[in-house]
């Protein structure tokens, strides 16, 4: 009898849950819609709200950039809509595989703010939902125990790292997303923009100079305080190092800040605080780049599918949905106050960090950087040879693409 009662209770709770799920989305979507995007928390928040409207199949993949252009290029497109970042948006724009959204925005986009509209030559081509930037994460308890001020420049950061190392309170003072490839390239881009303003002279590279040299030197100094396996360390790895209390300071993505207080994973709930990305030079700008993430709709789908996709996206990006998960990302919506975990991104933007200079040539250089710098950090190549190799490899790749 008891068993039957328990079973009955379980069943009714299922029905109850299903009932609330159906109610969560007022839109009853009948057109099948698919999406491809990265897999960090913000995308989970947005796509799970969209899933409740029915007929929506999201693909969340951290390596989405590998298949983005190819899958939208086919006709009909493999995905109705896609989540892009400042840089991948350039690739879909250049390939001409996304559609202008002006009509749809006029019809259904009342909840959007102007700063969410990505306007290219007067046409709305994407809807941004959040900003992202790498900024300082620090263990407040460790810094105050050791009497260290929050570092505002990288020189201060190195001093703090030394004090923490000498005190021996954590395994490694610093964490860093130095995994060779895209992550390592991004670290160079961030640091270089703290020293200089431009990577290019026309389409020719201009990193083989003193700023490039300083950037490399600073990166190497940082690695001395990191887990020696830094060349395999990506955002998730650094996030886990923090959560397991193994590191005290790192420049990590704003989209990872919410996870610090996730009691299911983190042993340091409430101890990690956020600040602007440190500056490379005193009086310079923060050594970080500003990114946005948002949605685009494929060109090679029917107007009906595009309309359904846009309506779904508006459900996902509804301020009420985002406001219920403020810690997941620095959302662009002004309808609610940002969560404390978003403060780092806001401070970084306020201190004047540069937007990521997305373009075809930048993507080319980014790839070259990610492949070349590892040898310098491990001591297999000198800074001079590395900068020369970066320029030579860029010129080879750019010539092949027809940029030069």
């Amino acid at each position, binding site marked *: 009898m008891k068993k039957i009662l328990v079973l009955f209770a379980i069943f009714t709770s299922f029905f109850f849950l299903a009932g609330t799920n159906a109610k969560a989305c007022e839109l009853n979507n009948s057109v099948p819609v698919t999406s491809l995007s990265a897999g960090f928390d913000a995308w989970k928040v947005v796509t799970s709200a969209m899933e409740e409207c029915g007929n929506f199949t999201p693909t969340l993949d951290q390596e989405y950039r590998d298949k983005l252009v190819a899958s939208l*290029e086919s006709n009909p497109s493999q995905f109705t809509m896609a989540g892009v970042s400042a840089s991948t948006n350039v690739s879909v724009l*250049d390939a001409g595989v996304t559609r202008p959204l002006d009509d749809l925005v006029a019809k259904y986009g009342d909840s959007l703010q102007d700063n969410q509209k990505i306007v290219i030559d007067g046409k709305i081509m994407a809807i941004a939902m959040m900003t992202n930037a790498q900024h300082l994460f620090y263990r407040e308890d460790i810094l105050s125990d050791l009497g260290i001020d929050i570092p505002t420049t990288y020189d201060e950061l190195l001093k703090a790292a030394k004090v923490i190392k000498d005190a021996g309170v954590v395994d490694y003072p610093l964490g860093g997303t130095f995994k060779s490839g895209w992550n390592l390239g991004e670290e160079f881009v961030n640091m270089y923009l703290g020293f200089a303003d431009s990577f290019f002279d026309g389409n020719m590279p201009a990193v083989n100079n003193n700023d490039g040299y300083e950037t490399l030197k600073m990166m190497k100094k940082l690695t001395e305080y990191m887990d*020696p396996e830094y060349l*395999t360390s990506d955002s998730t790895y650094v996030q886990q190092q923090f959560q397991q209390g193994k590191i005290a300071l790192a420049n990590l993505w704003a989209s990872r800040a919410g996870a610090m207080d996730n009691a299911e994973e983190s042993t340091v709930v409430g101890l990690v605080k956020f600040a602007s990305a440190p500056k490379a030079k005193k009086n310079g700008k923060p050594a970080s780049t500003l990114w946005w993430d948002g949605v685009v709709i494929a060109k090679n789908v029917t107007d009906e599918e595009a309309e359904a996709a846009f309506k779904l996206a508006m459900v996902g990006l509804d301020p009420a949905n985002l406001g219920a998960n403020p810690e997941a990302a620095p959302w662009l919506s002004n309808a609610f106050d940002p969560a404390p975990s978003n403060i780092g991104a806001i401070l970084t933007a306020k201190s004047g960090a540069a937007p990521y200079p997305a*373009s075809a040539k930048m*993507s080319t250089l980014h790839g070259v950087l990610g492949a070349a710098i590892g040898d310098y950090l*491990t001591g297999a190549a000198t800074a001079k040879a590395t900068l020369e190799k970066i320029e030579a490899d860029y010129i080879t*790749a750019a010539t092949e693409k027809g*940029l030069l």
Partner: protein
Amino acid sequence: MKKSTFLVFTMPSFIMMTLFIALPLLIVLIQSFQFNQDVLETIERENCDPFGCKTETITVPVLDENGNKIKNNIWVGFQNYKNILKFEQLSSVISNDGFEWSKIRSIDFYKALRFTLTFTFITLPFVIILGLILALCVNVLINRLKGPIIFITLLPFIITPVIGALSIKWLFIGDGILTLFLENILDKDIALFSQGWTIEILMLFYRVWHTIPFAFVIFYAGLQTVDKEKIEAAFVDGANRLQRLRFIIIPHIMPLIVFVALIHLMDSYRVFDEIVGFSASGFRISLQWMTYDFLRIDDSGTRSIGRASATSVLTMIGIIIILIPVLRRTFKEQKEKKL
């Protein structure tokens, strides 16, 4: 057999081989002499995002009336090969500073070639010798044990290579179980993924572990066909275990050893899974990994098909060169048999 019957029987496989082997090879060869480019134009574009509006001068692909990129294949001769092999840089390194390996390894191709060759030739003897020892051991087991033992030995070979590599990586990376274990025994901090040579040893170990079962199964099958009377005769003549192995068993299964060597050389020259599985690309790269890296689409939505094809062709040439001694040997044997 009549000529027409022969043709009818072989035609399907001939067509298949042309379609799926010869044609793709030809296309790769052609692509290796081309740049696959988008037609580009430099324009002014106004771009508004959450961080403000700006007008920038950028180079973008030209789109046709259907909104697709216009692709252009330009013949460039050996430019792709030059971009990979970098002979000028190589000769300047060798002539100016004497032979300095650290400068040569800054050229990706030679770095990859070095790793690929050491990987191929270091794993080969281990696979053959350990595979043979294993086969000899299992061969003398009592029959009831043979089945289960063979099954267990085959397990590493059944695992998908990438999955196997990943699981070994997770045993050792950061504070993996085995790293912690080693740290406890040796009482010092160990970071196996912080320098190239340790990762290289792990990759070699993994490949040997993964391929031994293949060698073992082949050799074990071969051992079943050894003439028992010959062994007994040798035993009566006073040959010890080692002599029997050297003069009867090994000559008998020599064709199999050559076969295993052949397959293993081809397989390990194409080393790729380990680089990805062990996230080793920051330290060690292989020729196949270079091809993959060139083929990967970057954020601008393009890939280097020309250089990818050129590395493929170079890899193929490399495999042929390595296989020549083995193939010549087999060819000679076939000839002798005919005579």
